[in-house]
């Protein structure tokens, strides 16, 4: 490595680490509260959209008495469902609060509700990943 390259690396590394740490924090914030990752970057349209879309999917999914998976699921599908539901971040507790009567997948709409909840989680994870990438400067 030449002296010039060493100087350049030393000059770039500290801000890059700070930027990476900020990007991770933004990604986590976007996961915990849907849209917050974009709001912190002043991407208001995306922030509001993800908050509303994930919120609507969670409220309707729980209102349709979809299956909200828990950590003690038992099999691989339940674990996968739990992972997807956790993707909604803090809205997982909102769904729990709405679904006081528990899930009911004996009807078609209960099954649809399960898909709504899982889709909300996966969509929020995708949004959080997008916020993280945007914070890193890869895409916006």
């Amino acid at each position: 490595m030449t002296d010039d390259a060493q100087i350049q690396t030393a000059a770039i590394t500290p801000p890059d680490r700070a930027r990476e740490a900020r990007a991770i924090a933004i990604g986590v914030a976007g996961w915990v509260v849907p849209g917050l990752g974009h709001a912190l970057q002043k991407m208001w349209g995306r922030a509001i959209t993800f908050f509303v879309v994930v919120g609507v999917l969670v409220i309707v999914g729980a209102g349709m008495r979809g299956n909200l998976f828990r950590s003690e699921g038992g099999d691989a599908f339940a674990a996968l469902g739990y992972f997807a539901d956790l993707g909604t971040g803090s809205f997982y507790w909102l769904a729990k609060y709405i679904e006081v009567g528990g899930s009911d997948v004996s009807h078609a709409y209960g099954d649809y509700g399960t898909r709504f909840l899982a889709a909300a989680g996966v969509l929020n994870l995708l949004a959080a990943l997008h916020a993280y990438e945007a914070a890193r400067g890869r895409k916006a």
Partner: protein
Amino acid sequence: MKFHLSHLQAMLLFALMISIAFGFLSRRRPLDRVKYIVWSLFLFLLFGIGIGWAMYPFSR
């Protein structure tokens, strides 16, 4: 809070929400977003209703 949506209502709501999210995620300009949302929604409905009709002969 309870919702009793029909199959079609659930599909319409799901398709609309996902299309809006994808539109905002993948496009930056408002017009591009609208085009993407409309096209995505159309494809969701086309495939949803199409698959529904394709299964119809086996439903009885």
